């Protein structure tokens, strides 16, 4: 988009010399007049360097990598464009920076995460309004487009050991609040510090543990819970590990958490240049529900199957 504009403007400014230059196969040599300096040059150069390649990013957990692989293969199949992958980037933070800087063209984000962690709103509203709010604000602030959600909600799973839940009759987070004073909790940093994280949850349910929750790496909390080092964790509800480690998620009976619907976020410039990308992504809308996502995650995390293979099989079966 910016590239086309600039070339047009440059032509107006300096006539035939530039026009001839832009007809050469490498449009990088186009020289805009002095006015439009560094930024324009940068955009032009980086677009040139990458050509038509679409770069798909992902956060550093299985589900994000897997969805990115599905999206990447879908784009390869349907658009024929070359697709690069920058998977397992260091979380929301890094993906958010990377897409705003143009290092990646799209990644899969969760509505509730974007709403609270990126846009800094307090949690609360219903599914539709969160999706609407984030897509409106992303487009206005950064020219980023939220395409249609996959159809599942990966919310925080306040999880305990299955044996403990059975023996104590725990079903909801309200049940947990009764016995929490005798229990230890271990949470990831994100959950402890997000606007939609522990502080609000503790207030909503009157949760108080025997000690302040231990802050640790999210992945390690699963193991710490399974090994009895802690009694409660906040995992991901679509995670394949929960079932495999005999852990069970308690119901959010007071509806504290906002919806976390997964959907591709794409740079608007890419969609304008390649309308086929939009069409390819639209096919994925509503195709993965909670149970399906858990199953796919388990294929990767529990059965250790290759992500590319899982994505290929799923696409071949769901969208032949």
């Amino acid at each position, binding site marked *: 988009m910016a590239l086309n504009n600039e070339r047009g403007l440059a032509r107006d400014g300096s006539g035939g010399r530039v026009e001839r230059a832009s007809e050469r196969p490498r449009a990088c040599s186009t020289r805009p007049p002095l006015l439009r300096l560094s930024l324009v040059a940068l955009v032009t150069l980086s677009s040139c360097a990458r050509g038509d390649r679409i770069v798909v990013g992902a956060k550093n957990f299985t589900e994000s990598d897997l969805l990115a692989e599905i999206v990447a293969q879908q784009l390869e199949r349907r658009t024929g464009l070359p697709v690069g992958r920058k998977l397992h980037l260091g979380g*929301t933070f890094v993906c958010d920076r990377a897409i705003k800087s143009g290092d990646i063209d799209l990644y899969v984000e969760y509505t509730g995460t974007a709403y609270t962690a990126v846009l800094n709103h307090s949690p609360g509203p219903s599914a539709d309004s969160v999706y609407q709010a984030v897509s409106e604000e992303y487009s206005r602030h950064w020219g980023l487009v939220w395409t249609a959600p996959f159809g599942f909600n990966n919310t925080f799973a306040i999880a305990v050991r299955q044996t403990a839940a059975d023996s104590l009759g725990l079903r909801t987070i309200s049940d947990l609040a009764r016995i929490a004073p005798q229990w230890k909790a271990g949470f990831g*940093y994100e959950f402890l510090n997000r606007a939609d994280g522990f502080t609000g949850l503790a207030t909503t349910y009157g949760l108080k543990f025997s000690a302040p929750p231990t802050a*640790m790496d999210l992945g390690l909390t699963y*193991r710490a819970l399974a090994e009895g080092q*802690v009694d409660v964790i906040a995992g991901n509800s679509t995670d394949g590990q929960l079932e495999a480690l005999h852990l069970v998620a308690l119901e959010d009976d007071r509806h504290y958490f906002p919806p976390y619907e997964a959907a591709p976020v794409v740079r608007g410039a890419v969609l304008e240049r390649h309308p086929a990308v939009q069409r390819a992504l639209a096919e994925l809308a509503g195709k993965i529900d909670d149970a399906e996502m858990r199953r796919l995650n388990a294929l990767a995390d529990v059965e250790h199957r290759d992500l590319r293979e899982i994505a290929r099989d799923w696409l071949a079966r769901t969208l032949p």
Partner: protein
Amino acid sequence: MDVLRFYAANSREVLGLLGEHLVLVLVSTTIAVAIGVPLGILLTRRPGWRRPILGFANVCQTIPSLALFGFLIPLPFIGGVGARTAIVALVVYALLPIVRNTYTGIVSVDPAVRESGRGMGMTDRELLVMVELPLAAGVIFSGIRVATVIGVGVATIAAAVGAGGLGVYIFRGVSVVDDTLILAGALPAALLALAADGLLGLVERRFAWR
């Protein structure tokens, strides 16, 4: 400048985490010295053990910290969630420079000096304590210095297993997309590493004067 404002508002917490960080580094480096120096000496007496032990220390260095924590959590006594696990991991990472420098320091003592010691009728023990260790002290100490400085940096990972330290700010900052928080953890850790390096550098120079 946001960082300074953050410190002003959270000075108690910052000092607490800095204290935790220092304790993690001091305890782990002390244990690593207590294990590493004798181990390095042992290698000079049992040349056959050199390859397997240095190889093991090399391999330890390559284990990703999160994977190491994952292995340690289920273990009794040295594992679990908290400072103990972090210290075990930090000791593992500090061993290589200490063992290697102790070994190298002693081995590179001039053979003529060693011979003249033997000629004076020194036992192996006397030779070690009165000749080899004093001559190798500079090299051994620079290994400890390297291990300490690396330890200050690596100790930020302790926050992943609930052991606190300055890494808490880094992990928190990364998870909530906040540069100020990341800097609030990274900046003092970097300064601490420089301070440790400078301080130990001074001590090292005293060794060199002897």
